């Protein structure tokens, strides 16, 4: 019997989720537009002084990215849960963790990557210097996958529950604090002229830890939720 290799499974699930996302483009765009609007609202709230905006920019972009990624978490498993495809995925004769990892990666490509691409444009609104924009991109590239991974655990735990959206934020947001601190810290560091390396390497370490553990924990959470 020809068994599916892990790489085949990974690419099959990623391609499937990307095709599905492309057929529901509106959902993807909503997350991105939400991100843009939240970031753009801040100057209206706190005033147009460029000094203050420049100082706030990293934190604002990061908090908005955090909220935007919460918004898209509901889609990660719930559609598959409601139409029964998740059940079938649990019967795949391969490690469920790999399948979960594929779904997380697809989710990140659809909801995290657009934020990373959009962020420098928003940074310009806040008059961030070029160097800081590069660091912002690097930090978001390292950080947004972690948000997707931690979010996946929350989404799996709250599968099919009433009020799942608000609940998942309550569960996931506290766990995202280190990402927020190091991510925004990296950008602040480059603005204030201190070393960026430690922030980014800590973020990288968090990414590695999350990469090792969260797919496994998410798979466990899915098994609990499907029972």
């Amino acid at each position, binding site marked *: 019997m020809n068994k599916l290799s892990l790489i085949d499974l990974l690419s099959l699930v990623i391609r499937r989720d990307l095709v599905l996302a492309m057929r529901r483009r509106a959902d993807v765009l909503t997350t991105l537009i939400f991100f843009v609007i939240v970031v753009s609202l801040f100057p209206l709230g706190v005033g147009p002084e460029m000094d203050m905006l420049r100082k706030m920019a990293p934190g604002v972009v990061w908090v908005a990215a955090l909220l935007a990624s919460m918004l898209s978490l509901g889609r990660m498993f719930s559609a598959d849960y409601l139409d029964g495809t998740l059940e079938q995925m649990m019967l795949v004769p391969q490690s469920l963790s790999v399948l979960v990892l594929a779904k997380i990666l697809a989710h990140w490509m659809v909801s995290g990557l657009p934020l990373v691409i959009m962020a420098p444009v928003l940074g310009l609104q806040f008059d961030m210097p070029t160097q800081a924009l590069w660091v912002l991109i690097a930090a978001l590239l390292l950080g947004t996958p972690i948000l997707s991974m931690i979010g996946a655990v929350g989404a799996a735990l709250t599968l099919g529950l009433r009020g799942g959206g608000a609940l998942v934020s309550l569960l996931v947001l506290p766990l995202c604090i280190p990402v927020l*601190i190091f991510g925004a810290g990296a950008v602040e560091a480059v603005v204030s002229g201190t070393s960026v390396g430690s922030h980014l390497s800590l973020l990288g370490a968090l990414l590695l830890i999350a990469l090792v553990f969260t797919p496994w924990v998410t798979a466990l959470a899915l098994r609990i939720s499907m029972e």
Partner: protein
Amino acid sequence: MAINWFKYSAPSTFYGVAGKMVPWFSWSAAILFVVGLYIGFFVAPTDIQQSEAYRIMFIHVPASILSMFIYLVMAGYAALGLIFNTRLSSMMASALAPTGALLAFLSLWTGALWGKPMWGAWWVWDARLTSELILLFLYLGFIALHASIDDPRRADRASALLAIIGSVNVPIIYFSVQWWNTLHQGATVKFTGTSMHVAMQQGMFTMMLAVWLYAIAVTLLRVRCIILERECKAQWVSELVEVRR
């Protein structure tokens, strides 16, 4: 002599055992509260730097330490329930959560009331305060997740997983908050007095023990309710004196 732990881990047995233990814990907690408050307010001298305000510490410190400790105990029970599928440990975990959350809230409240006269602000983004706040969020997440799942077995297992993730994350969060705080040169006011007066130590210790015993007593009361709720169809429940009445 080996104690048969499995016998005591059956909810039906534990219900009775807990019922017998509650009065002991609650009465000793009450007595210790009285003794602790007496030492705290009448025996312990006024602090040179903080004047009378330091007396808030007698409730603040026990509440803070216990709120953290209870989280670990809760996660431990939850893990036991998840791994060995023992129903009583899951019930204990969900019985501990509200007490832990209330103590975390009390710790924040008393911390703010101490901070205002000492630091001049109700709230500072100090590493310890921030971590305590996040701990409260973790408790609330646990309680909310458990409450929103109808199937009790799934609720136990899902919230157990959350508690374990939370307890793994607490050190990471604490470290990152502390790092962030030193970076921003936040509140540098430290708790004064490494050399505590003996009476202060005694007062603190007594209050600590009192809150501890109170937490055990109220948890046992709550776990008895949970056992009844979960086992309401069992034969032994319908034979209980309080039910047959």
